[in-house]
């Protein structure tokens, strides 16, 4: 009997979402009153699930990530990480930023090793493991380069290694491949999928590129245009895995999904433009 309860509670435990946002409201104080960026957003990402958030520019997608990371506190609503409420920085999450976030004064290997060193790993061991990670992201020979000596794509690879070496349970990604050219994006997307398949983490991936979102994820969530952006759609992506980004885009199912979701997204994009012009 006692065993049964324990088993039941364990199953509930594993069913708990990695990230659960409930009725989250985000508002910023501005010169006159306050500006509501996100209005009552509810979203959950299961353990090992890859969820993409797509929405027009300026709709508060990144804000939602910052909430999940604990970098920002919501004005209302609750944030739960594996079932427990988030009150400070989210220690179980790794965050890949949109802008360059590498330490420019550290070499590639030191940039990757630092995440372990902060956790108290001896420097020697941290560097060995950092070298392994650089090799995994295809930069084994670039350990001693400073970020400014690397290309945009290479910097993103270092960033990926920097985050993944800490083995976070949750991966938050904010348009990580945004500034890259189309080919590099595809290569980076495949690299990300490879790494993710090897060790399934919960991923929350923000992008404005619907094709990228469908190709990568298990679920695509659509946000409306801001201010007071809301989540207005949630699609399951039943495409088979493992996927290759360039191949999956040729799949008829991909096109059907794309048509469906784009139909919904298009009206929001138009609305977003209209609001931008008024402002």
């Amino acid at each position, binding site marked *: 009997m006692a065993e049964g309860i324990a088993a039941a509670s364990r199953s509930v435990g594993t069913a708990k979402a990695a990230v659960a946002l409930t009725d989250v409201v985000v508002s910023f104080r501005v010169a006159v009153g306050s500006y509501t960026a996100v209005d009552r957003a509810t979203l959950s990402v299961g353990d090992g699930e890859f969820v993409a958030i797509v929405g027009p520019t300026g709709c508060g997608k990144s804000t939602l990530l910052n909430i999940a990371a604990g970098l920002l506190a919501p004005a209302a609503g609750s944030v739960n990480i594996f079932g427990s409420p988030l009150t400070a920085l989210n*220690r179980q999450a790794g965050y890949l930023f949109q802008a360059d976030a590498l*330490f*420019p004064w550290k070499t590639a290997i030191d940039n990757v090793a630092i995440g372990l060193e902060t956790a108290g790993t001896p420097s020697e061991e941290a560097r060995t493991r950092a070298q392994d990670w650089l090799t995994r992201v295809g930069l084994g020979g670039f350990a001693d380069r400073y970020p*400014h000596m690397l290309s945009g794509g290479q910097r993103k690879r270092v960033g990926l290694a920097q985050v993944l070496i800490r083995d976070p349970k949750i991966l938050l990604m904010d348009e990580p491949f945004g500034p890259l050219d189309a080919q590099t994006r595809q290569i980076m997307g495949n690299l990300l999928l490879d790494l993710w398949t090897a060790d399934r983490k919960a991923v929350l991936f923000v992008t404005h590129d619907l094709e990228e979102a469908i190709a990568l994820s298990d679920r695509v969530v659509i946000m409306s245009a801001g201010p007071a952006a809301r989540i207005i759609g949630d699609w399951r992506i039943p495409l088979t895995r493992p996927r290759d980004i360039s191949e999956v885009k040729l799949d008829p199912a991909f096109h059907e999904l794309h048509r469906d979701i784009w139909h919904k997204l298009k009206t929001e994009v138009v609305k977003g433009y209209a609001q931008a012009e008024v402002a």
Partner: protein
Amino acid sequence: MSRLSLLALQILVAIAAVALWYVLTTYPVFGKILLPPFFFSNPVDVAKQIHVWFATGVIWKHLWVTLIESILAFVIGSIGGVLVGFWFARQPRTAAVFDPYVKAVNALPRVVLAPIFTLWLGLGIWSKVALGVTLVFFIVFFNVYQGVKEVSPTVLANARMLGMNERQLMRHVYWPSALSWMFSSLHTSVGFAVVGAVVGEYLGAAAGLGYLIQQAEGVFDVAGVFAGMFVLAAFVLVIDMIVTVVEKRLLVWRPATAEARP
């Protein structure tokens, strides 16, 4: 342009300038010497004077004194600037309270402090060091303050997400950022350390390059004044070259475009 031809052209400029100086101070143009040697001396006398200084070895003592004063002013001013810069940048309230006073002291022409320092610290090296410190301190202070304030918010957020605590943030983020700003102003601050030392010596001292120039000027020895200026210029050039080498080593991580910043 190749390095060699550039060097050749640079040397040519010096030769032309010295030749022009020599001709105008020695040969009359339309029956009149344009640069009277009493006011402008001439290259031969100046060269002789410099030769005498080095041959007799008098100059080493003065160079040594000026060098020591400059180094002390640079080191003390930099340490003070780094500490206060860090402190103010991390404590905005303190910075706000002291802001008008910092601005007021910085606006003060430092030369007027020289007599006070001489009064307080005597004619020895320390009054010159103090003058140099007041110059170096503010340059380093403003740069470190800026460096700590202007850490990219993304890099900072990334550091926190990577699990850094306050101490680690200091070591891995704020400190390198502040240092990079400080090093980017290394030429200026080292230059000001020398200026402080020489001006201090000029206004009252018993040794140093500034003292040498002031002594020559006191007896209308124009050749001595020019000789002192040339030695001083060479001294500053050598120091600047050393700074350039140090800077290159310390800022390897900087992209080349950032080095071009004035």
